[in-house]
């Protein structure tokens, strides 16, 4: 029996008449509004979404995207993507569609494969919603129901449900962040596929990759990484890019390590909080059964531990949000930046090869025109990529610094808040106990 997770909200499906987006995009400058898109259609508030990663979005009224609802089903999650836009190419000013994870991936991949976007950092795809661990735990709980008391069972069930909900919120947030990043990017927001994604209210019929395609992907990746190594060896003339390359390589590895270690640390923290929960229950039983004056004592301590354990759980959850998620996100972003540098290096190598070919053609005086055109193309491509890449990387740094700042400050503030809360609980309990002995 697979435990079906709590359905957070039933999505409201908007049935817009099918529209065909016209390819005329308005090119408008955008204001710097710093509005975090958070519109809710007037139904009951689904949940307060933790803003996992603030990417300092500069959205404006012309295009605001968010995920207003989400529905968790047996093995998939249905996101309701809500758009508010004043752009002329959309039929309505406000509309929603239901999308699944695979469709997000399809969108991301279409960006990656698009040559036009070679010079941009493609916002990293959101990770697949993974409820397996949580579902397993719920199932185990169901099986072990007979071996624990009713109170224990309800308590553990509540906890696991809370955990499930937390994971759920996180995955919604990550999908949302992806869309917001795309919407905030001056070029990507105009992408046709993106508009189709936002507006087309039928199923995009995007199937997940079958085995053959996955194998192709695998080979592509192998080739790419081998190529990447070759290309990375090419020393760049431009100091800026040379520096960025070394920096990103090292940074990416260290973020990966930090992210893994932070996950382990937080997991230990959660385990300790769980133990305190069990201790509180045991103390409660002791308190109700004891015949001496210890019974009052035990009950008070049990109460205290119940409260402190909730605080500890929240500390672990906040650390997860502000630290772990931050690191994970920048792991993916730094990979995307690395990919950009790779594409640029690739185009540089192509350019240099075209130059050599041109020289050869000139010396042999054969196919010169062809070689010239091809060289022109390569040159143009390279310069285009270089130019946009430079800006992208600078933006990346700004975004990164801002995100870290925000999250570290919030982390410290939350740690302080919880520690002070804990302290107060402990001190009041101690005070009570010392006066009553």
């Amino acid at each position: 029996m697979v435990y079906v997770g709590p359905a957070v909200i039933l999505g409201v499906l908007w049935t817009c008449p099918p529209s065909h987006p016209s390819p005329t995009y308005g090119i408008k400058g955008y204001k710097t509004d710093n509005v975090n898109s958070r519109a809710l259609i007037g139904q009951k508030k689904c949940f307060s979404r933790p803003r996992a990663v603030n990417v300092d979005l500069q959205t404006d009224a012309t295009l605001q995207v968010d995920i207003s609802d989400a529905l968790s089903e047996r093995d998939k999650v249905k996101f309701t993507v809500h758009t508010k836009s004043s752009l002329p190419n959309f039929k309505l000013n406000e509309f929603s569609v239901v999308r699944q994870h695979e469709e997000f991936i399809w969108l991301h991949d279409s960006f990656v494969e698009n040559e036009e976007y070679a010079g941009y950092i493609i916002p990293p795809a959101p990770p697949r919603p993974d409820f397996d661990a949580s579902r397993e735990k719920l199932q185990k709980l169901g099986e072990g129901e007979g071996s624990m008391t009713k109170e224990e069972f309800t308590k553990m069930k509540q906890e696991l449900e809370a955990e499930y909900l937390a994971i759920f919120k996180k995955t919604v947030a990550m999908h949302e962040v992806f869309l917001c990043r795309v919407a905030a990017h001056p070029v990507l927001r105009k992408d046709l596929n993106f508009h189709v994604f936002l507006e087309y209210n039928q199923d995009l019929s995007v199937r997940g990759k079958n085995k053959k395609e996955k194998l192709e992907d695998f080979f592509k990746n192998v080739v790419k990484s081998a190529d990447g190594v070759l290309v990375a060896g090419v020393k760049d003339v431009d100091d800026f890019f040379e520096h960025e390359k070394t920096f990103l390589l090292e940074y990416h590895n260290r973020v990966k390590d930090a992210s893994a270690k932070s996950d382990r640390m937080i997991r230990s923290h959660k385990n300790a909080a769980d133990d305190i929960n069990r201790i509180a229950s045991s103390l409660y039983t002791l308190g109700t059964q004891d015949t001496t004056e210890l019974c009052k004592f035990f009950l008070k301590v049990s109460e205290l531990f119940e409260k402190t354990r909730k605080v500890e759980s929240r500390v672990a959850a906040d650390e997860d949000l502000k630290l772990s998620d931050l690191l994970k996100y920048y792991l993916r972003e730094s990979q995307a930046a690395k990919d950009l540098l790779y594409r640029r290096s690739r185009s540089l190598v192509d350019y240099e090869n075209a130059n050599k070919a041109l020289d050869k053609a000139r010396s042999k005086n054969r196919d010169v025109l062809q070689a010239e055109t091809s060289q022109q193309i390569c040159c143009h491509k390279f310069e285009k990529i270089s130019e946009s890449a430079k800006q992208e990387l600078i933006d990346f740094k700004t975004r990164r610094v801002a995100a870290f700042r925000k999250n570290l400050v919030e982390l410290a503030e939350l740690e302080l808040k919880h520690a002070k809360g804990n302290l107060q609980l402990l001190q009041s309990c101690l005070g009570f106990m010392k006066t009553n002995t």
Partner: protein
Amino acid sequence: MADTDREDEELFTEPSGTQSQPASLSTEDVSANTNGPNQDALFDDDPEDLFAEATEEVSLDSPERDILLSDGPSPAITPITPPTSVIAPRIGHTHDDMFTHSSFDEIEEEEVDDSFDINISVSDPEKVGDGMNAYMAYKVTTKTSMSLFKQREFSVKRRFSDFLGLHSKLASKYLHVGYIVPPAPEKSIVGMTKVKVGKEDQSSNEFVEKRRSALERYLMRTVKHHILLKDPDVLQFLESSELPRAVSTQALSSAGLLRMVNKAADAVNKMTIKMNESDAWFEEKQQHFESLDVQLRKLHISVESLVCHRKELSVNTAQFAKSAAMLGNSEDHTALSRALSQLAEVEEKMDQLHQDQANADFYLFSELLGDYVRLLAAVKGVFDHRIKTWQKWQDSQILLQKKREAEAKLQFTNKSDKLQQAKDEIKDEIEEMEGRVQQDERDFEQISRTIRKEVGRFEKERVKDFKTSIIKYLESLVLTQQQLIKYWEAFLPEAKAIS
């Protein structure tokens, strides 16, 4: 001063004693021979005289002395009747039999007058010897103002088997009459082997510290018991610099094997004895202790798990700190880089904090629970002894009945020649049995009384113990949170300074 001291100090009774003691043991003779001439020296406050005593102590290993202090190889062999005669001379001249009701009350009054002021610490573990014969010697320091002791502050060196020896002696003397004797810390072959082999690493240090703390708690619990405190074995343990080696505590000695056999026999007996409980109090208490045992075990497991996870957390935090530092190094934005390094420092401090908290979790909470689980086993043992005593009484009653039946049968035989002799024999036997039955009944009542008092004392101790320990534990938690606040408050401006 000398006279009053002498009255209290059983070990060194005045040779010219006027008391009439049971003939079996001649303590006075022993003391006269060895201690008489030097008694004045003993009451000197000169600490050097500790060693002056030592020479006396060594000579106290005369055979008579041995009987006094150690009751043979195995505590579990038979309920020993010698205690009545062994202990009596020690408590004081005025008491003939410690176990008469009146003397018992007098002892308690004594206890109330003599305020309990004794503090024992176990410290300075030192490795003595090498290889497999090596052992840890611990310094046992006693600080007291009680007149029971010759000095206010003194210390001796003891090894683990000495503690076990002390416990086995006390158990053999007191457990079967209903006193809850605190159990000694458990042996650990693995732990000790590591120490012997000479591994100077974290885990063997932890093991030694665990053991040291356990030994300290054990001694404090023992002396808190007003009867045990006055026991000469305990006094000798605390005071004399040389102690005969307790070989019978070794697991694989003949004594050890005998113990194991007896334990098994006891277990079988327990299952077959069905007692008619006339006193509901005992049944109620037994049930109470049983459920307490179950609950404490459960709690203990949870606390041990907490200790484990907190240690894990500490390790993982340290690793994350290193990782964050590396990340800070590779970050090329200066302010962010600095902030990340600061974060790494905070996490490092947290690692130490978690480590300290895990230790507090262990020593203040987990070990308390472990001690009480073991104590409850001793309590159960005492209740079981009561049942055995009852069984003994029942058995002698049955035997008496049989003898009476045999006597009655004799009345109806016709053999006249042996009749009178047989009748006389039977009459004597019956008389003896009647005496035995009475004694057994008295024993049973005595042990029941003792257990009632002991349970009262135990519960009082338990309440005090738990309250003190848990309050200390909560204080440790408070300290941790205060430190946390300090660290994060120091970090916050650094994080805000990122621009």
